[in-house]
């Protein structure tokens, strides 16, 4: 009897953990596309879906959390998401400028230079959103070995229109966005290693076996992303992505644009990842038919060649996938003038010769025959002051203020310890077909205390790029078939006026001497009595 009750008790103990064991799906995919300037864009995406799971309700943060058991979902990331009750998380670490005009839109839209982190969190009385945001930054910077801890209140904003929730909106509490970017962050091997550790097969099997840091970080453009999205009907989806733009013309001696997996990554896939429910390599075929692709047994769908690598498929793992142009002796770069691939091209610069002020100028070109309306977002650190009254919108040197609408400007707001959050400018631009719209405004550069300058003060400060985002079709009745996500402009580098860093003592001494000299002279005079004395000779 007693033994039976012990068994029942043990069975009771085990029940909840079994009930929590959810179905997890892991899929991986590699997309390879030859670009028109001879480069090759590769996009890895590793998706883990935690079916039926939902984000943690932040109101329950004070209580004990349910235990976490994952088979494929990375526990380290899961713990962070539960600890800070994150509904949606996006982290990207990129290096280089994405060349929209020649490469088109990237498969993963978040290509802003440096680090970018944004998270949607439910509001709660237990811990504030800002406290959890600070914890999240520090936890992620520990997990990915990146300086995300410096994404503090001086860089944090809440641009909800440009960065909406990608998944479903939970009903348990109103949600808030925190967004921060650090354009000067460098991406390197120390970030890739923890990234690979989050994958169920690490880099031992499956597509991730191709990720050779020496090759990936030699690419002209490279970046990685972590996206956690909750969708009501599926569950929590974790997408780890890695994009790289290789340049075979540069690396091959014969100046040819031929590529194969071995030459791109210097690695090959020995075995498929056994837990992956799907694993595929998709080659996007160029429109011109003068290329050859080997092995010649892929499934062709709409100009795509798909190689299935999953262990359940009947295919054997192709040892190497290659694309080559047999009739081409050496690659001829397309000659200018090139028409940009994307309907929208953006240039953003800061003019001005002095270190104290300049003119921020953004020119947006609509290459398509239709009118395009886009959202424009500037998130400027408080060391740059944008003079909004000097804002000008021009087409061919004619002022066209009517093309800028729904202007929203948030000046920098004071934070704790005399810091200011960035200023935010958001507007809707309407660009007529085949024209260039120019926005310009005067900016001032701040004079900082000598302790606020970075150690390499003369290098200057990186400013985050502007973001152009599509307007939701509902609010703006635009009959445009142009489907795209955000466009990031390259970052800017501004040189701020610097004080002399060796002078603190000298300045204190010299200024105080002058003050005491004048103070002393005046009080010397004021405390004297004037009398006339006779001097007998």
């Amino acid at each position: 009897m007693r033994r039976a009750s012990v068994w029942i008790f043990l069975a009771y103990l085990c029940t909840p953990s079994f009930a929590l064991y959810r179905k997890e799906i892991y899929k991986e995919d590699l997309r390879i596309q030859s670009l028109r300037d001879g480069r090759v864009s590769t996009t890895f995406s590793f998706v883990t879906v935690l079916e039926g799971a939902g984000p943690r309700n932040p109101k329950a943060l004070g209580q004990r959390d349910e235990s976490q058991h994952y088979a494929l979902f990375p526990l380290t990331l899961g713990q962070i998401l539960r600890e800070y009750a994150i509904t949606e998380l996006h982290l990207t670490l990129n290096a280089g400028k994405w060349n929209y005009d020649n490469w088109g839109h990237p498969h993963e839209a978040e290509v802003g230079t440096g680090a970018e982190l944004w998270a949607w969190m439910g509001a709660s009385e237990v811990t504030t959103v800002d406290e959890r945001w600070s914890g999240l930054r520090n936890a992620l910077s520990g997990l990915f070995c990146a300086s995300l801890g410096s994404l503090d209140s001086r860089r944090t904003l809440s641009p909800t229109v440009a960065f909406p929730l990608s998944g479903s909106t939970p009903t348990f509490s109103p949600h808030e966005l925190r967004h921060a970017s650090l354009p000067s962050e460098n991406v390197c091997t120390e970030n890739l290693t923890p990234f690979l550790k989050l994958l169920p097969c690490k880099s031992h099997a499956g597509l991730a076996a191709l990720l050779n840091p020496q090759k990936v970080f030699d690419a002209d453009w490279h970046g990685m992303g972590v996206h956690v999205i909750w969708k009501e009907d599926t569950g929590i989806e974790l997408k780890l992505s890695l994009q790289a733009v290789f340049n075979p013309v540069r690396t091959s001696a014969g100046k040819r644009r031929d590529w194969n997996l071995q030459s791109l990554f210097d690695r090959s896939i020995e075995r498929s990842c056994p837990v992956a429910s799907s694993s595929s390599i998709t080659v996007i075929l160029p429109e011109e038919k003068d290329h050859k692709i080997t092995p010649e047994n892929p499934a062709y769908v709409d100009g795509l060649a798909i190689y299935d690598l999953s262990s359940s498929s009947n295919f054997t793992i192709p040892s190497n996938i290659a694309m080559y142009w047999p009739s081409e002796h050496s690659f001829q770069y397309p000659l200018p003038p090139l028409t940009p691939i994307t309907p929208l091209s953006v240039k953003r610069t800061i003019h001005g010769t002095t270190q104290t002020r300049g003119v921020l100028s953004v020119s947006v070109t609509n290459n398509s025959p239709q009118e395009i309306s886009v959202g424009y977002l500037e998130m400027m650190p408080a060391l740059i002051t944008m003079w909004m009254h000097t804002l000008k919108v021009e087409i061919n040197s004619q002022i066209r203020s009517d093309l800028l609408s729904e202007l929203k400007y948030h000046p920098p707001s004071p934070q704790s310890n005399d810091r200011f959050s960035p200023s935010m400018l958001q507007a809707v631009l309407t660009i007529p077909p085949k024209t260039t719209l120019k926005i310009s405004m005067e900016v001032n550069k701040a004079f900082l205390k000598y302790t606020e300058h970075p150690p390499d003060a003369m290098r200057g400060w990186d400013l985050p790029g502007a973001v152009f985002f599509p307007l939701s079709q509902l609010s703006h009745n635009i009959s445009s078939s142009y489907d795209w996500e955000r466009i990031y402009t390259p970052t800017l580098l501004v040189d701020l006026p610097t004080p002399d860093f060796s002078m603190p003592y000298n300045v204190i001494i010299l200024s105080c001497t002058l003050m005491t000299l004048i103070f002393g002279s005046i009080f010397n005079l004021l405390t004297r009595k004037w009398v006339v004395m006779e001097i007998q000779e």
Partner: protein
Amino acid sequence: MNTPPAFSFLVCLRLLLAVLPLPGQNLLKHDHQLSSPLTSNLRLKEGLWLLDNNIDPYTGGSFHHSPLLLSVFSTIVPPLPIIWAISDAVGAWALLRIWHARQGLSFQKGTRPNVENLITSVYLLNPYLLLPSLALSTSTFENTLTLLALMFASQGKVSSALLAIAFAVHLTSSSILLLLPILMILVSSPVSHLASPRPFHGNLKRIPFLFGEFTLYWLVLVGAACIITGGSWSWVRASWGATLTLPDLTPNPGLWWYFFTEMFDHFRPFFLMVFSVHLVIYILPICIKFQHDPLYAAFLLIGVLGTFKAYLTLADPGLFISMISIFPEVHGYLRHPIITTLLHLHAALLLPLQHVLWVSEGRGNANFYYAASLVMGMAGGAGLVDACWAGMRIAVGDAKEWVEEKVDGEKGKDEGKVVWWEVVQQ
């Protein structure tokens, strides 16, 4: 009203300058010598834009002007250059009337046109005052209000004087230095007693009542500012707080900016306190020593402000320099006017040069400009110390006068002896 010929001519010229399009005006507006973050026209316009767009101008940390200026320029008149020209004209006129009051002349007589011409020209042609005014810096209004307060005080118009100084203190809180001498002028007289010092001659019991009246005006202005900003107090921190905490370290000809750029973080609050208290510490000693001539005490305190103020611009020493013209009696007793002039010349030439070299050309560094600002500090200090000296030295008079006095007084007893004067410590 009998105005001197130079006044009408120069005011016309000044109005013409305001109306004509000047080629370098945009450069002037951005010049750090002529306008500080607290007085810059660019920031005023930005504040007006923010107000138009229903954004609180004081949250952004870039706008430090008083809400009163904001409301005047957003509702009554747009910030046109002509207003700065009129303000200059009013300032010159106020300076003239102060001089009249000091000489005990009624304005209608206008007996000494040469001096009047000189005073007008010294005010309207002073480059330290003209250039900031062309740069549309709001320091022009502060100077005019200070002069108006002194003028009304000299004429004995109590309420107007207190209202004017309340406005001046509201626009720039460091003008509070001038409150005590203005109260003293109101209860005594502005007439020159430098040559014949005497204990304070006036009804001291009135001072608390006058101070109460000033406080009332000041509170009304604060209340008005709060109503304008919609009940928010953020403007106090942004406008008055800026002179105490120095959030913006834009270079200027003063001593504060580089000191606090280079200051160690843990000493900042201490030295901010020291620099603020240092300004206030001059009030009582100067007012006690010059109790026989409070207008001269006010002049010396304007000199203190023109040397040690936070966010100093050239307009501050400019007011001190122009005011020297209404004290002709001390000119003969200045010890080193040439050195002071040369120091000012040195600073005025070096400041823009070193600023361009550092900020635009990138050839020099911040120390060059700092050195020039130290020379500016020396020039301001030299003028102040010399004015202080001359104001006391005049009481002793010339040695010759003393000889004659002795001769008269002692019936030729000491005749033939050479009598020298000498200063001895108390």
